[in-house]
């Protein structure tokens, strides 16, 4: 029998090798799933992972990659800072929705302005919306010691009902002939998050995501606050002796991740989504959790993981239209990826030893 033996120090090799191994294992398991559904597994895998980058319609789909990766990266970086410190904000979906509502609300309130200051103001408002929504679990945790996982998640459901109210009530397009949904930002140039460079799918959200990744990397490797985050996660007792204030850390990590999720929501609603509607949110807040882990909670790794996850979205849509693969199959596929990652991860801290005789 094999048994696990703890490594004296975590393996550098497996730290970097686990994500690719997990992706390959997921492709194999996913292939079996697709075959069980009566599809040709090789064709499906090629449609998801190859065609969007090198296939016939790659000139268009490559742009879609950054459109999808942008919000995932932005949210996942915020989450990763918290996860590293042992602070579990899993309500990013709610912060994303609230950022979109507050940011878009500011823009719609002054419709139809042509001032070029309106978009920056909306960006700030979006970040504020997400930040404020994340402050609820943060302050409840620091003041009353409540569990931030449960509170932040409950607030997702609250945000979803507010979104329903916004799109059918207070943000509804007065000229929309009774249809739910706000005014469309594509006909509101001053407030629109238009493409800066369309072939790459680059809009302000993508720029923000890449800049944030670099800043977060610097924060974690070069700044006192980054050191405190890592210390609090790895050795909470040592962190206390070092003088880390746990309450301040909670407020900071939750605040950053909330603001980033709010930003992602604002960029999405004014750009690719176009309007506040009852289902403009597509679960990026939850998928970003997978992205954060797949990227090893490292900002630069998260950028790669964000593109990979975007590939499963874009390729999944292709597989859905061309091969009739249900959307839910992609969700299962993404869930599997996280399972395999968590399973393979054991090799970073442990090694398998052949167990000879009784011990």
């Amino acid at each position, binding site marked *: 029998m094999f048994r696990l033996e703890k490594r004296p120090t975590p393996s550098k090799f497996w730290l970097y090798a686990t994500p690719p191994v997990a992706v390959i294992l997921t492709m194999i398991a996913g292939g079996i799933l697709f075959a069980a559904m009566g599809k040709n597994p090789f064709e499906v895998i090629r449609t998801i992972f190859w065609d969007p980058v090198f296939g016939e319609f790659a000139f268009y789909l490559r742009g879609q990659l950054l459109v999808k990766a942008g919000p995932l990266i932005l949210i996942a970086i915020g989450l990763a800072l918290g996860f590293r410190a042992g602070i579990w904000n899993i309500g990013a979906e709610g912060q994303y929705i609230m950022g979109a509502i507050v940011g878009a609300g500011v823009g719609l309130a002054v419709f139809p302005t042509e001032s070029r200051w309106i978009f920056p103001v909306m960006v700030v408002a979006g970040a504020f919306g997400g930040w404020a929504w994340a402050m609820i679990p943060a302050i409840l945790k620091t003041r009353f010691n409540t569990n931030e996982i449960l509170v932040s998640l409950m607030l997702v459901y*609250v945000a979803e009902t*507010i979104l329903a109210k916004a799109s059918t009530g207070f943000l509804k397009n007065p000229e929309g002939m009774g249809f739910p949904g706000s005014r469309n930002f594509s006909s509101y140039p001053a407030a629109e998050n238009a493409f800066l460079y369309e072939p790459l799918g680059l809009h302000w959200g993508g720029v923000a995501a890449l800049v944030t990744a670099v800043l977060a990397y610097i924060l974690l490797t070069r700044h006192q606050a980054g050191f405190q985050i890592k210390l609090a996660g790895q050795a909470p007792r040592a962190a206390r002796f070092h003088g880390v204030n746990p309450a301040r850390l909670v407020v900071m990590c939750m605040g950053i991740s909330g603001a980033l999720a709010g930003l992602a929501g604002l960029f999405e609603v004014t750009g690719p989504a176009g309007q506040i509607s009852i289902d403009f949110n597509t679960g990026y807040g939850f998928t970003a959790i997978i992205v954060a882990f797949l990227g090893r909670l490292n900002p630069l790794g998260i950028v790669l993981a964000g593109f990979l996850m975007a590939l499963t979205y874009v390729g999944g849509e292709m597989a859905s239209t061309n091969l009739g693969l249900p959307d839910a199959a992609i969700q299962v*596929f993404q869930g599997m990826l996280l399972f395999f990652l*968590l399973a393979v991860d054991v090799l970073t801290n442990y090694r398998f030893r052949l167990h000879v005789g009784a011990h």
Partner: protein
Amino acid sequence: MDIGGINPVILIATLMASAVPILLAALGETVVERSGVLNLGVEGMMIIGALGGFVVAVETGSPVIGFFGGAAAGALLSLIFAALTQVFLANQVATGLALTLFGLGVSSLGGQGYNGIKPPPTEQLLPDALADLPVVGPILFGHDWVVYFSILMTAVLWWVLKATRVGLIIRAVGESHEAAHALGYKVNRIRLMCIAFGGAMAGMGGAYVSLARVPQWVDGITAGAGWIALAIVVFASWKPWRVLIGAYLFGGITVLQLNLQVAGSGIPVEYLSMAPYLITILVLVIMSAGRKGKANGAPASLGQNFHASR
């Protein structure tokens, strides 16, 4: 004797039924957490149970077999969590989240083709002669068997955890896995069994949603009930009877807000439907306030993996 268009007897009778899914799931999770494992995948196990129970009930025509199908589906999914956390020693929080995401995906994939079908009905258990008695009839005798089963399970778990050897072992593993290991108990194996039990209970709770509460198959049918069950475990300080109180309080709020929506209270529907979640947060705050650290009864080893170095 209606109060504001709402009959209190009917309200109490309905809340007992509407609390069943979260009661079953929260009871299961109580055992899991008492053994020192934090499984955040309750929502995923519930929805898999909801689908499993629905499919089995529709295919066999028997709602009773359906409930056991739901329990089996939930337990099966929980074994993935058990394998990852107990064998591969993966982070419990991350694995639980993954289980929920995976369960939601699998249920929506597997549920295609089951929309719009009516499952075989789950009937009232006792004869009408009893259920038609004034006041006590609907509250005590007018339910289906799962409602009585959920109350019975509360009593059984209370007794098992408090007064039996099995309960003592589970609590020992949850309070100090090192000590339990030193006494010769197989920590990870005991936890694995607790996780499977929790999965079965969550699955059965989910099956009650799709077979008795709604009753049909809709994507995302559990709508956060699993997360509320997790909150109720904290509310209950990991004690079965308090889980029952918490679930009934919550069931009462849910039924009340639905009744208010129907009765037309003038409060917008959206604000009423967010009430259960806001009240859950409020309850969490009240239960946790003023108790810094682990004083509120959480098992000491909760959320920590165990690896026997010797």
